[in-house]
């Protein structure tokens, strides 16, 4: 807790020494990183759910494992697309 307080105080000190433009750029960079992190949470949960259900299905019906894995792989790839879109939005907002 004490370490967090020290970090917060150091951040405030650094922020106070920045010009408004630098502070704005700093905030934009932090928010872009935060947005990318948030964009990756949803697909992470989604992939976990897809795999959990697929493994449950394969455990119940091993003979249908091929079909389950086919649809599972496509579902995971589609879910990953959301994270990629978040990443691309981050890159474009931050660097383009």
């Amino acid at each position, binding site marked *: 807790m004490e370490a967090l307080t020290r970090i917060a105080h150091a951040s405030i000190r650094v922020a106070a020494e920045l010009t408004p433009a630098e502070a704005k750029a700093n905030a934009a960079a932090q928010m872009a990183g935060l947005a990318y992190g948030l964009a990756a949470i949803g697909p992470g949960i989604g992939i976990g759910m897809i795999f959990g259900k697929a493994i449950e299905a394969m455990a119940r019906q091993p003979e*249908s494992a091929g079909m389950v894995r086919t649809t599972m792989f496509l579902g995971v790839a589609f879910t*990953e*697309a959301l*994270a*990629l879109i978040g990443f691309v939005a981050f890159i*474009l907002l931050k660097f383009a």
Partner: protein
Amino acid sequence: MKADDPQYVSILSMNDQGPAPEAAIVRDIIKHGSIVAPILIGLSAVFWGVNGAWSGAYGVVLVLGNFAVAAWMVSYTARISYALMMGATLFGYIFRLAVIAAAVFFVRNATWVELVPLCMTIVISHVGLLFWEMRYISLSLAFPGLKPKHVASPTVQDSTSN
């Protein structure tokens, strides 16, 4: 106790020694990608010039490589155990995102890189190729008789052979 019961099979010890449908899916996707890539690279070249073409090509390679690594991880770990497959895929998701991020970060200041076509190519080729593949997969699953003949597809035939 469950572990002493001969009928009890732990999911930790289950695995799949059958054919890997992911490999067939990725082969299809790469085949389709080789058709789509010249179009995307050409469009990038029209709007952003030579640098756009290089960026588009780099984006397509990243996407196809991402699919290939994902398929390899799933098919390799499924032969060992389903539990390992789940772990490898969840950590692999983070790993592959990090690799793509690093691959874009490292080249973002290169002279041959245009970020807009690179990012657009990554998203469009990823989603577009998946939709293209889904068309075959869903047709094959719903109507096996209508399965396109030229596709070596991971479908009902594979699933019944497991």
